């Protein structure tokens, strides 16, 4: 036995002192109570009987003292908080705090029941057992070191709230394995809904620790949105397409309705018929939303869904950057039309004779139609149509008649652009510099070239558009669109919808520290590195990272599969919790019981 409370010396001192007081009090003789009686003879018989019980009366005094000393001993011993020195178990209690723990198939929810179960595990610990609580979600975290203090452990358990992420079981196991390494009698108790991949449990490397589980939850009935995303069409930037996947985790056919909202306004509703375990993928084409905020809401049939987190999903599509564009031309409606097809273009026109070199940062794109200024305009994107002279980004060579256009090497500007059957009357051969890309050529002679000069990107077309039928082909607006995207660096728009529990790097304009606001309130400031903030969203809903809004969804089929699986690991048997309390509790309880009995015997004059 080892003392964890008051040290032995102090206990002995306390006991000696208090014992001495008790003994002294009992050594004092008590004065008898004087009672006057009417006739002494009446009491003589009584006195005879009392004389016969003299022996018992003599025992009453030491017995009373012994009882008092026993009471004192019990309480003083309890103060020492003695515990057996035997080797106890070392438990890692992995408390599932994943999204599926919010399921309401049991009242009030799985998390509450899991906390109760975890507390039961702690209550079942022996005095020499130690345990640590690991909160298990996508980022498992030990909530404290190994401890034998049941109350402290229970306090930790009570504070565990479910996150909206999936449980990272391998990482939790690794954590438990590390914590229990070289410990005696190690054990891992998994407390949760059992919606864990069985193969993970089978492959779990726990370093010899025994794996037990306590499963809460009753039903796996759920319908969930397991994927939701929206994108702009590459050409028609005002229109969007959204894609939703709805999966049934029911064992019978069911019907549900999926509502699509854009900027908060209902746009479309589809009725979905799903067989057992079926997934429906629904595409919503040609959607329109000014702010690009889409939301999918699932309306399952009553009684078929115990998990609400996956019934809503968000997709926020960022607004394309506006491009201030200057067209320097004597008039080219085809070129102007192709530019105006892009809604992100703010176009201004100027005739070559009125052209003045613009200041830096005035224009994002400058288009030079059959006009080449001696100095290239200071803009990040330049389009040259039939360039010539010293100001051309590429040297120009001989003129070829009726060239046969062929595509060059793969390039972002050539996405969906086909040169086949494009007719050109005459073209100037361009001489690209090393590093430039040839987008179109005729028998090896480059005619359309793209490249970079300094910080500016350029596209050079070696022929007059009016002497070609390119402008009436679909390839032309595509080429212009691709060029604008390439100039603005938006050849791939970000998809501002994330899955909860996955780290994402959110591009944020400027700022080294950015405010992060979660759906449940501010989360402080996050450092930005290389223009992006590493965000780990642990709740579904709308997050704000600086000026950027992001929709965070559960969208995890494995987490939507909430069916509890008892038997995945051997069940934890709590044992008789009441017998496993700390010894001081038993000592104190015994003292209380004896004290009450002593009270009764004292007042019935069995003890003094």
């Amino acid at each position, binding site marked *: 036995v080892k003392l964890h409370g008051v040290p032995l010396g102090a206990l002995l001192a306390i006991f000696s002192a208090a014992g001495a007081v008790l003994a002294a*009090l009992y050594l004092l003789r008590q*004065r008898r109570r004087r009672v006057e009686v009417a006739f002494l003879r009446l009491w003589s018989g009584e006195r005879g009987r009392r004389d016969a019980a003299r022996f018992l009366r003599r025992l009453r005094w030491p017995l009373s003292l012994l009882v008092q000393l026993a009471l004192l001993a019990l309480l003083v011993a309890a103060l020492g908080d003695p515990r057996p020195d035997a080797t106890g178990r070392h438990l890692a209690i992995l408390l599932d705090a994943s999204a599926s723990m919010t399921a309401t198939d049991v009242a009030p929810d799985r998390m509450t029941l899991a906390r109760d179960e975890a507390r039961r595990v702690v209550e079942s610990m022996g005095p020499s057992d130690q345990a640590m609580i690991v909160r298990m979600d996508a980022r498992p975290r030990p909530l404290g070191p190994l401890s034998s203090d049941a109350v402290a452990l229970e306090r*930790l358990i009570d504070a565990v709230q479910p996150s909206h992420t999936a449980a990272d079981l391998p990482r939790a196991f690794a954590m438990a394995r590390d914590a229990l390494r070289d410990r005696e009698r190690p054990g891992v108790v998994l407390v949760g809904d059992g919606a864990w991949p069985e193969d993970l449990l089978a492959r779990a490397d726990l370093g010899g620790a025994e794996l037990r589980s306590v499963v809460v939850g009753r039903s796996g009935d759920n319908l969930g949105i397991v994927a939701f995303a929206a994108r702009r069409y590459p050409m028609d930037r005002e229109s969007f397409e959204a894609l939703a996947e709805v999966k049934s985790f029911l064992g019978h056919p069911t019907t549900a309705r999926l509502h699509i909202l854009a900027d908060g306004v209902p746009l479309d509703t589809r009725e979905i018929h799903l067989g057992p375990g079926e997934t429906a993928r629904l595409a919503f084409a040609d959607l329109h939303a000014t702010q690009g905020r889409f939301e999918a809401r699932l309306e399952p049939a009553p009684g078929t869904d115990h998990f609400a987190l996956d019934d809503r999903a968000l997709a926020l599509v960022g607004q394309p950057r506006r491009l201030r564009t200057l067209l320097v031309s004597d008039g080219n409606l085809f070129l102007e039309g192709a530019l105006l097809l892009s809604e992100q273009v703010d176009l201004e026109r100027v005739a070559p004779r009125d052209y003045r070199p613009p200041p830096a940062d005035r224009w994002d794109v400058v288009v030079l139609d059959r006009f080449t200024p001696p100095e290239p305009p200071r803009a990040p994107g330049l389009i040259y149509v039939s360039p010539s002279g010293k100001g051309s980004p590429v040297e120009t060579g001989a003129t070829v008649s009726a060239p046969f256009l062929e595509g060059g*090497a793969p390039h972002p500007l050539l996405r969906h652009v086909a040169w086949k059957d494009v007719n050109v009357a005459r073209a100037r051969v361009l001489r690209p510099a*090393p590093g430039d890309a040839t987008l179109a*050529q005729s028998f090896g002679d480059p005619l359309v070239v793209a490249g970079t000069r300094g910080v500016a990107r350029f596209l050079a077309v070696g022929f007059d558009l009016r002497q070609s039928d390119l402008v009436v082909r679909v390839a032309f607006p595509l080429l212009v669109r691709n060029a604008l995207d390439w100039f603005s660096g938006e050849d791939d728009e970000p998809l501002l919808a994330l899955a909860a529990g996955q780290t994402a790097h959110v591009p944020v304009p400027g700022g080294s520290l950015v405010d992060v606001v979660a759906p449940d309130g501010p989360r402080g400031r996050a*450092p930005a590195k290389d223009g992006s903030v590493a965000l780990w969203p642990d709740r579904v809903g709308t997050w704000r990272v600086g000026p950027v809004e992001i929709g965070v969804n559960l969208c995890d089929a494995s987490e939507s599969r909430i069916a509890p699986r008892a038997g995945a690991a051997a069940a934890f048997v709590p044992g008789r919790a009441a017998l496993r309390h700390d010894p001081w509790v038993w000592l104190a*309880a015994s003292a209380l019981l004896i004290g009450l009995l002593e*009270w009764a015997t004292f007042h019935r004059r069995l003890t003094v």
Partner: protein
Amino acid sequence: MTFALARPQALWLALAALPWILWFSRRSLSDLLPAQRVLSTVVRLLWCACLAAALGRPLVVRDDNRVAAVLLLDTSPSVSDEQIDAARAFVERARAARGENDVVLVSFAGAARAVPLDHRRAVPAAAALRAAAAGADATDIGAAVALGRALVPAGRIGRLVLLSDGQDTEGGLGAEAQAAAAARVRIDTVPLVRDRPEALVRAVEPPPGAAPGEPFEVRVGLSSTEAQHARVTLFEDDLPNPGDAVREIDLGVGRTEVRFRARVTEPGLVRYRARLDGLAHDTHAGNNQLAAPLRVAGQPRVLIVDGQPAEADALRRALCDARLRVDLRDPAGLPRKVEDLDRFDAVVLSDLAPESLGADTTRALSTWVHDLGGGLLFVAGPGAFGQGGWEDSGTERLLPVRFDAERRREDPRLGLILVVDKSGSMAGSKIDLAKEAARATADLLDPTDLIGVVAFDSQATWLVSLQRAANRTRIHDDITRLSAGGGTSILPALREAHRELGPARAKKKHVIVLSDGQSPEGGVLELVQDMVRDGITLSTVGVGDGADRTLLGQIAEQGGGRFYFTDQADRIPRIFTRETSEVTRGSLSEEPVRVHATRAAEVLAGVDLESAPPLRGHAVARSKPDAETLLATDDGDPILARWRVGLGRTVAFLSDAKARWAAEWLRWPGYARLWAQLVRETIRHPGGETFSMRAWAQGGRALATVDAIDRNDRFVDDLVGEVAALPAERPSDRVTAPLAQTAPGRYQAALRLAPGAWFLRATLRSGEDRETVGEAEAAVGLGYAREYADLEPDLQGLRQVAAATGGRFAPSPEQVFDTGGELVRTPKELWADALALAIVLGLVDVVLRRAVPGRRTG
């Protein structure tokens, strides 16, 4: 300060004790004075309450200002021993200044571990600290912060002190810093500034694509912490880059870029590797080279391998006219390695004997077609099928046809009747040799074939009635009964053979006549004509000078067979087996056949098959179940079939493409067009649409995103597919990962790849009919571990982390314990206090009972 009870249910004990105490107090027999009794009762009630309260585990929550400082020490390879020693000194000073505060140490690299600190001893040495952490070649600061937070004991102000160069290779620091800030755990950051020289190749950047012969630049990004001289070498596929391979440069401190001129003449995948040498100041050698791939697109290259290359010239010219680059080789020139095959977009195996393809070649072809998307055209021919042997071969497994068509058919392929002369002149060795020949013939046949043996002298006698050759034992026994005797008359025996064979269900019906004598001719040749009309062919064998060569010759000639003569009886068995081999050559038919299209296909567009002359022969095979038969003979034998094999396509053309079976086709105008379209359709090219794919390296993984957008600006959804990653140096060692749709028209995959240059090819198929809808290509280079990629400490990052969590940047060890007025609420258990009070109350009770003045006698 607040109070709470952990087990409030214990208070029920006090409530339960109350009536007990009061009842006995009221019914007391003791001689206590009333006031004394009341007082004792109150004390005893308080005593019970104290014990019940103790059992209820009372807590008091108080403010505390003690700090638990968890020092997170970066021991990753980017931190030197000297830096770690400096950090150890920091830890020592912090320990010395801790007072009532706690100090905990964590060592981390790719993983984090707590290091037990014995306050009587010095902090473990650098080597021990490095050993304590795990996961070399990485720095996971996020994991260290997470562990550090877990190690802060309850009731202490948590303070994490990050001693690091800030190079977080796993990218988890930002998110963990956020979580720490949310939990009000401050992170102080102490930068460990690099003190070792380092130079590295930061990037190798060829253009996204190039055309053959087109000059381009390969940019090589270099970084150095010291100004020093260096030599940079650029390799193209392990050979120095032609024309511009080596540069002697002076590296400045910081970043330097070197541009190499490059040009690739041949299409294909090229790997550029830059190497940094001759460095005077460098620590890690592993980051001194880096590779990146480049895909060079060009005119498709086709390899024709023909048993007789000179005969394949017509095919070569047809393909050249279709603007294809054609190599014509003999079988010895067929590449045996995938890398060599990968230089071609299609391979035509024309009239090749099966033995021309070794096991290595077959394996390489299989990988090339399946994994690299190569196109294989198998063109039959008499040379290829003269001796058979394609059945069950590796090549056959690639092809859309099966060559064991006849063998596996339920109906007999061959009905063969041996008509054997048993006249007296055959007595002796001749009849024995005839028996042996008959038995050998029976053994040669396929079990499903039919065989019959008719012996004749002046009469015909069935030795073996027409039956399946599977009954070999019985057939052998029956043949043994053959004995010589009697005259010679062929006609009755031929009649019997005709009678039995005519109605028999066999694709080929044949009779072999063996005779050594003169037979009456009357009616024989007429019967032979009748037999031919019934599809029966006849061959004859004459033995010895006495044989009627004229008649036997005429029978063979009119019967569409062969006439054999021998004067050596011991050759009879050999003649029979040869003849049997001839007629069992069912995999080859040299009868003129016309072909017709079995279905409309783009590959046949513009080819006027109506005007196509007949082919003089073809190989007999049957299409595999998933294959697409495009051309067939009027008998239904497939001539042209195709299918997909993995990423590639294979085509089987079961006639030839030269002046043997296709002699008339060479003059047919459709010949060149058919072959040009056939090869163009089969060559390696994206199936369906060409989608765009982006690929980038992240950690040890390549992430690939394919955008499936059709020409009408619509997203293509509901596709399935995969990405195959092929190392530039060994395309056969591929790694694949499935593509999953993540958004309209967007499919993503992640591949865990070894460092090197990788070429990625994505294939997307329709989820319904598995037809290829589109393909995409990209290249990605994976370099050395990120741990070695950054030279400078990320001071800005460390500052930001400190600022985001309210911590200090570069604090002194003493400042670590500065709470700044911060307090933490600490729960303290009071059960021991309650017990102590109960002890006191117990004593008071005894005093009240026994030591009250006035109750004692003197």
